[in-house]
C-alpha cells in the first residue's frame, strides 16, 4: 500500500503540473479537491482518465469518484480494490 501511495502522489504531481511540490509535501489524508491540494473540476476528470489508463479502472458515476478522491489514502484504497490485473503498473 505504501508504494501505491507514493506512486499516486507522483502521478498527481506530474498529472496536474504541480510545480515545486514533492511527494512528501502531500499529506496522505488531506483533501485533494477544494481545500487541501486545491485541484479543480477538470483535474477531477483528469484523475478519472489516469485511473482508466494506468490502472484499468472505469468510473461511471460521480458518487464513486467523490468518495475515491477524498484523499490520497482513499484513492489508494480504491485503486487497490479495483485495479485490473492486466494494467501496466506494477503491483504493490
Amino acid at each position, binding site marked *: 500500500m505504501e508504494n501505491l501511495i507514493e506512486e499516486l502522489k507522483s502521478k498527481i504531481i506530474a*498529472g496536474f503540473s*504541480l*510545480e515545486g511540490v514533492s511527494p512528501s509535501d502531500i499529506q496522505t489524508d488531506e483533501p485533494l479537491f477544494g481545500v487541501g491540494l486545491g485541484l479543480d473540476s*477538470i*483535474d477531477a*476528470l*483528469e484523475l*478519472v*482518465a489516469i485511473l482508466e*489508463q494506468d490502472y484499468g479502472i472505469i468510473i461511471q458515476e460521480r458518487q464513486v469518484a467523490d468518495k475515491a478522491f477524498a484523499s490520497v489514502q482513499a484513492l489508494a484504497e480504491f485503486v487497490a480494490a479495483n485495479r485490473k490485473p492486466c494494467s501496466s503498473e506494477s503491483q504493490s
Partner: protein
Amino acid sequence: MNPPAILAASYLGPEGHGNDLTGLRAWPASLNEALQRGELDGLHWSLVSDSDPSRFARMDLMCRLGLMAAELLDAGFDAMPEARRERIGVCVETFAGSLDTDIRFAQTPRPSIFAYTLPSTVIGEICIRYRLKGPVLCLVSADAAGNNAAVEAAEWLKLGDAGACLCLSCEALDRKTAVAAGLPGHLPPDGWHACALLIGGREGAPRERPFAAGSLVEICRKLCSKPKRAC
C-alpha cells in the same frame, strides 16, 4: 481615421527574447543549445517575467509561447481601464498551430490537455490574463511569416471594431515531438518563434512607431533587434 501605430513589439525565438525597448536578450547558457535545436520544454515564465505565472505550468507549448510573447510586450494592460481593454482585440496567425499538443493528446488523451488541441486557445489564455474582450480571429497559414495577422487587425481598427489589437505569430512545435511522430514536414520552415505586435490609434506616446503591413515576424525581429532606447 489616422493610420494605426505600433504601440509595442515583442519577440521570442532561437536568437533570444525581448521587446522594442529592451532589445533581444540571450537565453541562459543552460537552455540555449536545446532552444537552438528547437527543443522547447525548458521554456519557463520566469525567464521573461517576475509576475505571478498563474496557470502557466498547466498550459501547452503554444499557449506558453504566446503568453510569454504577450507578457514581453510590457504593454501595461493591467493599468488600462476596463472600457479600453474591452476594445482590444486578439488576432493570431500560425502555421504549426496546436500540432505539438495534438500529437501528445493522440498518444495520451487527457481531459486537461484537450482544450489545448486548438490553435485558438492561446487567444483565450491571453484574454483571460489581461482581461481583453475585443474581436478575435485565428488564422492558420501556409507559411510561418505572419503576413496576415496585422493586416486583419488594421482593418478592425479602420472599421472601428477595435481600439487596439494584439497580433500574435506563434510557431510552437517541438522538433523532437514532430520528428518522433513522423511529421518533420509539418515543422515551420524557419524554426520556432512567438512574436507579438500591439497596434492601435496614435496617442503620441514615446514608444509609438508607424505601422506598415508586412510579415509580423520580420517587423518584430527588426524592432526588437534595434530597440528605441528611452530618452
